[in-house]
């Protein structure tokens, strides 16, 4: 099914590739044999009705899924340079080292309570042992600029992160994720808790981020996928139905189920 993308991916090097990836919650098989290749510097959208496994899928890509009680993963995820033979699920691989290369932004903004705006961005580096003030200052500023938040917060870096508005908090979370310089950024419906204006700002931001990282974004908002992504994968009931260039998927889907979903027949 994913063959068309895989062949295209031959040209541009893949930033991330999954091979027969499966995930379970207890006995519930929620991700079923997904093989997918994401080219470097793409914004790759994952769409599908809620409960189709797309969120679980991306939570497998930074090994976060396994932190849930009763959760299990099988298959391969290849990220160049991340692990022995690139497979982050190879035995002996420390998930912590994977998560430094694969950042994540969540559905609801979740800045660390009790930490200042500055510390929210710097904490990933600080806890990794980087304490040189000038380095941290630098990274904080760059990350906040990348997240289009710098101008708004540069005068109140000492204020708690939770004092910002919802949209600003989400951009703070993006800055926090960027601060550790990930190769891949996973975004799990990052705008679903936000108002339209904040959503628009984040969408703009994601399009720009493309220059620095590869972005996988889960969304249930098809317009959003159409606006910001250059490739889209359609998930249904834990399976990958179809992948392709976003334009293709939205104008000329190959699978009838994709077509039904896109035209609003279900979901």
């Amino acid at each position, binding site marked *: 099914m994913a063959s068309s993308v895989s062949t295209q991916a031959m040209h541009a090097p893949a930033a991330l590739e999954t091979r027969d990836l499966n995930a379970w919650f207890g006995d519930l098989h929620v991700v079923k044999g997904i093989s997918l290749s994401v080219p470097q510097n793409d914004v790759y959208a994952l769409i599908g009705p809620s409960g189709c496994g797309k969120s679980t899928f991306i939570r497998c890509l930074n090994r976060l899924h*396994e*932190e849930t009680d009763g959760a299990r993963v099988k298959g391969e995820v290849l990220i160049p340079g991340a692990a022995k033979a690139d497979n982050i699920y190879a035995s*002996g*691989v*420390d*998930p*912590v080292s994977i998560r430094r290369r694969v950042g994540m932004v969540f559905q609801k903004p979740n800045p660390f309570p009790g930490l200042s705006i500055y510390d929210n961005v710097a904490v990933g580096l600080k806890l990794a042992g980087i304490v040189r003030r000038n380095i941290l200052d630098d990274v904080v500023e760059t990350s906040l600029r990348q997240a289009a938040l710098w101008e708004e917060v540069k005068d109140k870096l000492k204020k708690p992160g939770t004092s910002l508005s919802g949209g600003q908090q989400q951009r703070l979370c993006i800055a926090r994720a960027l601060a550790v310089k990930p190769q891949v950024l996973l975004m799990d419906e990052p705008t679903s808790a936000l108002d339209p204006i904040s959503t628009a700002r984040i969408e703009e931001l994601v399009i720009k981020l493309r220059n620095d990282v590869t972005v996988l974004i889960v969304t249930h908002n098809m317009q959003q996928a159409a606006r910001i992504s250059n490739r889209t994968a359609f998930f249904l009931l834990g399976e990958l139905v179809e992948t392709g260039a976003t334009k293709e998927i939205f104008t000329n889907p190959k699978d009838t189920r994709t077509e039904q979903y896109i035209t609003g027949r279900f979901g």
Partner: protein
Amino acid sequence: MKGHNIGDILFFSALRLVSWLTVLLFVGMLVFIGHLAWDAISEKGISFWWGFEWNPPMDEFGAAPFIVGTLASSAIAVAIATPISIGTALFLREIAPRRIASIAAFLVELLAAIPSVVYGLWGVFVLAPLMRENIQPFLSKWFGPETYFAAALGHLLTAIAYPFLLVGDALGFTQVTLSSLSAQMMAFSQGVFDGAPLGLGLLTSGVVLAIMITPTVTAISREVLLTVPDSVREAALGLGATRWEMIRLALLRTGRAGLVGAVILGLGRAIGETMAVTMVIGNRNEVPQSFFDPAQTMASVIANEYNEADGLHLSSLAFVGLSLFVISLIVNFTARLVIRYLDGKGKA
């Protein structure tokens, strides 16, 4: 399985280790106190619990007076504290305006914070004289020997005990006649409020304990009452029930199991309470016959005698402690079962 991070493995192993140490600490309590008590356990066995003589110089050790003392003082405490606590919880929930309720709840919490030894001090110097001068003379005048109450109680107890007597007779266990039963019951009830008003004694300790457990029982009852959904209350009120009828039908009936659990937890506290009781119960190692008699509880005898004890005496005191430990565990466990029963019902 989760993660392969070295730091995580070390940290969570340490967490587990320390947690198991705590579990071990609890098990160790049983073991170590059991070890202290071993001489007494091997010498007396469980007959320790129904031996009525406690005479250290003669090496006679029976814990029955203390078990009776503990049960009696706690029973008095529960009898007094139950209506007061549940009444207060209802008052806080249904009658008091919000502001008064929060102040009253705060005061009740303060009561819970007062250390046991302060209750004891107050009991010795304030409550005991009051009991001696006013309350005990009053009680013995109206409920003591030669009163209608004593006679009525004697008849009532006879009536309650008689059927058991008949069954016992039929099975050949007992050979007590009605008249001798009646005489015994009469003698008992004449004695309930008899005796010199000493101030210090079983009743005083029961009153102090009641004051001490009231905050506990009130707080838990209040929580229980808060779990009764407003819809149940409103349904009752909507049917035209008066406020009291609503309290009876909606709150008390729905919260029954939880309230019983609260009272049992209060009982557990009363049973284990040491200092206040030690100071006001009078410390006499005999089974009390009257509410006014000085007595001794399992906790108070340990507090009183442990420092001067050695040999079998010490070991017997440890055995008393072990028994107290087991009783409180059983009582608290029961309370938890009752409350869980409520939880189960709440979910269904």
